[in-house]
């Protein structure tokens, strides 16, 4: 009788551990995604500053600047799903990269103290975003392993947990951080 109780208690404990482990992994993913979100907001906050600094110099990129301002407005308006956020972020990253390349044609702008400072801040945030994305991918991989591997997979299917997508960081995007290589393109 008591043996039976011990076994039941053991199984119960095991289930609780599986359950808590999965919850912990899910929360880790959400936590890191939260950080990415904060960092992206920080970067969006820099866009008006960037636009106002470069627009007096950049005569041929007016269209791009208007577009990026519009994107920022959309991003900070809220009510976006996670997927939309990621998508918008990719577009903004690409466009920012484009602007930074175009800067090459404006030596006066490149020498502008304000711009140099701004560029450093942008690099900083890009580097932090890249770190957060990698942390997110690590957390998601951890979570996905738990969802697909035994014995946690049984628990996960009962809790209706599904695989999450990792960030696909294109090679080009990763290099955004390195301004020198951008300029040499």
């Amino acid at each position: 009788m008591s043996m039976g109780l011990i076994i039941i208690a053991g199984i119960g404990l095991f289930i609780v551990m599986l359950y808590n482990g999965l919850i912990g992994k899910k929360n880790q993913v959400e936590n890191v995604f939260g950080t990415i979100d904060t960092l992206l907001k920080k970067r969006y906050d820099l866009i008006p500053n960037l636009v106002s600094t470069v627009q007096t110099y950049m005569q041929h990129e007016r269209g791009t600047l208007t577009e990026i301002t519009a994107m920022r407005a959309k991003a900070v308006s809220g009510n976006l799903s996670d997927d939309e956020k990621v998508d918008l972020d990719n577009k903004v990253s690409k466009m920012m990269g484009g602007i930074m390349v175009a800067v090459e044609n404006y030596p006066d702008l490149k020498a502008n103290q304000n711009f140099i400072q701004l560029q450093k801040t942008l690099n900083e945030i890009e580097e932090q975003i890249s770190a957060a994305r990698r942390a997110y991918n690590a957390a998601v991989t951890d979570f996905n392993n738990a969802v697909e591997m035994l014995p946690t997979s049984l628990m996960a299917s009962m809790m209706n947990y599904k695989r999450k997508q990792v960030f696909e960081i294109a090679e080009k995007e990763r290099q955004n951080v390195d301004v020198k290589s951008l300029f040499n393109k």
Partner: protein
Amino acid sequence: MRTVKELKNFYDTVLYPELSVIEEQRIVTRNRVLISSAVIISIALIIAMIAGYLNAYLGIGVFSFLVLTGVYRYVISEYVRNFKIEIIEKLVKFIDQNLSYTRGNYFSPTVFQESKLFNHRVDCVDSDDYVKGLIGQTAMEFSEIHAKYVTRDSKGRRHEHTIFKGLFFIADFNKQFKGKTIIVPDTAEKIFGQLGTMLQSMNKFRGNLVKLEDPEFEKMFAVYGDDQIEARYILSTSLMKRIVDFKKSSKKTIQMSFVGSKINIAVSYAKDLFEPRVFRTMLDFNPIKEYFEDLKMAVSIVEELNLNTRIWTKE
């Protein structure tokens, strides 16, 4: 960075004349060492003969060995000092004009402890060669150190235990961060594979295990940190690659930590660094090349790890 060919030229023109003087001192020093050893050993033998019983031999042996090492150190001290000032300092300046060389103990136990590289309490740090300077925009310093902790046995005798012996390097890091991130050689994963990783993640002594995506880097090192994102912010994909390359080219055991906006690196060495030879001639290019390569390895860290890239907010 200077090449071995440039060093050969420097050796022929500048160092060789200096080494000739050092060589004369070496011969005098060697003779003194030999004579004083002969005297000590003879005295020990005489005492042993007078004592005449077996139990005393061990005591006499140990005692005369201690006297020998003490006398040896004393006899060679002046020669060593001259050698370091004349040769090592010139070599340091040859590698980079902006570097300065000092003899003396500049790394306190606190500095070493604060690197968080080793868990053990540090009681004393011996160091005598200290190099400091600016490489590009990056302030750096390094020293050959021997960090120890002291215990006392039941009879109150003092015992020293080595925590680390080798080169200890500190430089200003090019990014700002708040927490600590530590990189240690990955022994558990090498031996136990997947199970090793599990064991590592349970070891919270150094902080949380940070699993990184570079497989080559992961095979060599285990990373612990306060903050998963910050650890990745510091260890960008390019820095991981550079650390792997540095580890491969130096062929040494390397540990690193990132604390208080600095990078600390400990490179283990079994031998004593930058010491002159006593029983073999110093008029030889090979030992000079060895000193040069050990110094260059430390100085090159700044370039190897790209610490001069200042594109982020930290100036």
